[in-house]
């Protein structure tokens, strides 16, 4: 019999202990709770699929739809803005180093504090956007961004894009800088213009990084809690209630642990689908990379 080498396992103990207790066990416990009527009271009973049935009857589809629209809108804006940012960062002009420092603050400062600042910007009576909009005739009167359904939805997306864009820019810049210089020089010698080089050299070679970032960003955005909670708490009239917000409100604000857990399980299923797509794409990309 081959002896099992204990050394690598010993090195893994602290990480496994921490991640196991704080993430893996709660994951299993969420599944268990979702089949019970757990709440503030001491006893809890098995209720089968009642929590799921209730969720599906009432508000599952609108919330799922809203979450998907919120996530895809935010992620696509982050990717477009991030790509523009990366191109600007990559331009060999004076002042580029300063530009790199100045685009990062939204990512560096506490998310919640960034949201307080945005809450003021969105204030209808006295805030900057409404105020300047009135002065330049865009709005005829005070416009309270967080009080109307669609405006609130867009506003939370804008704040999410503001926080997420710097990281996407940096990541895509790093990927851009690994593209061999001679490819550009070859294209340049052949008389290719800047735009043509971007379309035919940069963009195709950047595709794996853009895909990776798109999927990671989708997962992070899907899980986004703080921004919506601070700006609107899911309102007005549920217009910004995504799956995460709905789960938190059910479980923590209303103390319905069982029902909340069922909602959390639905989120986990969505995340599993997303991760499966991510892993499949990653595998395909690395295999393609090796084949070359």
């Amino acid at each position, binding site marked *: 019999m081959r002896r*099992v*080498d204990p050394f*690598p*396992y010993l*090195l*893994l103990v602290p*990480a*496994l202990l*921490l*991640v196991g*207790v*704080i*993430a*893996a*066990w*709660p994951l299993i*416990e969420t599944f268990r*709770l979702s089949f019970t009527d757990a709440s503030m009271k001491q006893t809890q009973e098995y209720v089968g699929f009642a929590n799921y049935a209730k969720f599906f009857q009432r508000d599952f589809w609108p919330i799922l739809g809203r979450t998907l629209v919120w996530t895809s809108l935010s992620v696509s804006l982050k990717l477009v803005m991030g790509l523009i940012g990366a191109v*600007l960062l990559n*331009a060999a*002009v004076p*002042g580029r180093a300063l*530009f790199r420092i*100045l685009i*990062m*603050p*939204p990512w*560096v*400062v*506490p998310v*919640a*504090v960034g949201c*307080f*600042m945005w809450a*003021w910007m969105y204030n209808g009576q006295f805030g*900057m956007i409404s*105020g300047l909009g*009135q*002065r330049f005739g865009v709005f005829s009167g005070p416009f309270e961004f967080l009080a109307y359904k669609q405006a609130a939805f867009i506003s939370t997306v804008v704040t999410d894009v503001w926080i997420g*864009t*710097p*990281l996407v820019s940096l*990541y895509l810049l*790093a990927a851009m800088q690994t593209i061999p210089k001679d490819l*550009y020089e070859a294209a340049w010698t052949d008389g290719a213009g*800047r735009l043509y080089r971007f379309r035919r050299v940069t963009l195709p070679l950047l595709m794996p990084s853009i895909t990776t970032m798109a999927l990671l960003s989708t997962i992070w955005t899907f*899980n986004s*809690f*703080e921004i919506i909670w*601070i700006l609107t708490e899911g309102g007005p009239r549920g217009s910004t209630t995504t799956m*995460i917000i709905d789960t*938190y409100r059910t*479980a*923590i604000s209303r103390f319905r*642990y069982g029902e909340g*857990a069922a909602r*959390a399980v639905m989120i*986990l299923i969505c*995340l599993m689908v997303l*991760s499966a797509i991510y892993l499949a794409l990653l595998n395909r990309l690395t295999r393609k990379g090796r084949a070359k």
Partner: protein
Amino acid sequence: MINRYRWWELVLIYAGMALFLTFMLAPFIEAFMVSLRPLNEVFRIPYRFIAEGMSLANYHQIWISQPMLGRWIINSFGIALAVTVLSMMCSIPAAYAIARFKFKLRDGLLSVFLAVSMVGAAVLIIPLYKLMLALGLLNTYAAMIIPGAAFTVPTGIFLMRSYFMRIPAELEEAAYVDGASRLYTMRRVILPIAAPGMVVVAITTFITAYAQQFLFALTFNSKNHLNPLPVGLYQFFGHQEVRWNELMAASIVGVLPVLVLYVFLQRYIVAGLTAGAVKE
């Protein structure tokens, strides 16, 4: 030459940068302007970017009206630092094991960590709350530190793993030939070489931990003097009548230390953030 720009291209680039920065910095600039206004100028119509009677008075007033402010900022730094230390203590040995040793379950474990990094903390909040309750950790720093660290460990492992994989294995083999034990080799040969990478990961973890300390503190803590800054300010934000000028002054005070830290360390932070991009 290839990189020479025509004048209109330069105009386009700088205009693009200016637009981009306007979006990124407008909330900070506006927050700073509001923090200088007296209260009657905050609630004044029509809106004026530069108001009358601007002064630093609010920066004095916040320490009186929010006596806990200093404590919240210290808490924020303390919690982020503890999260970083705990996270590094767990992720460094794990990353080394995964990068260097072949063993059963290795790929499986990597997938588990990957999966964990995809589950948002808010999804697991119910069992976490019950766990904190059962362990008697509600209303302690530990309730904000331990979960905070757990959710940064997977990223730490991925980043550190790529640093360890770049170190040639011959170094360890040479040490073994000289009769060094594996623990000694790891501590005296490998970790010093990986030190720059570890610093980068630690700084990135710290900034992340400082930026994202809201959910756990909001849910697991109700003791005001233990709150980190974001939750401390959130209470003053939740009131019917928000004193926006003071809230913005306190926000500026709260973000200043981490912004200064960022400016000094940005080279390392950028390296940490982009390490994955180059390797993938």
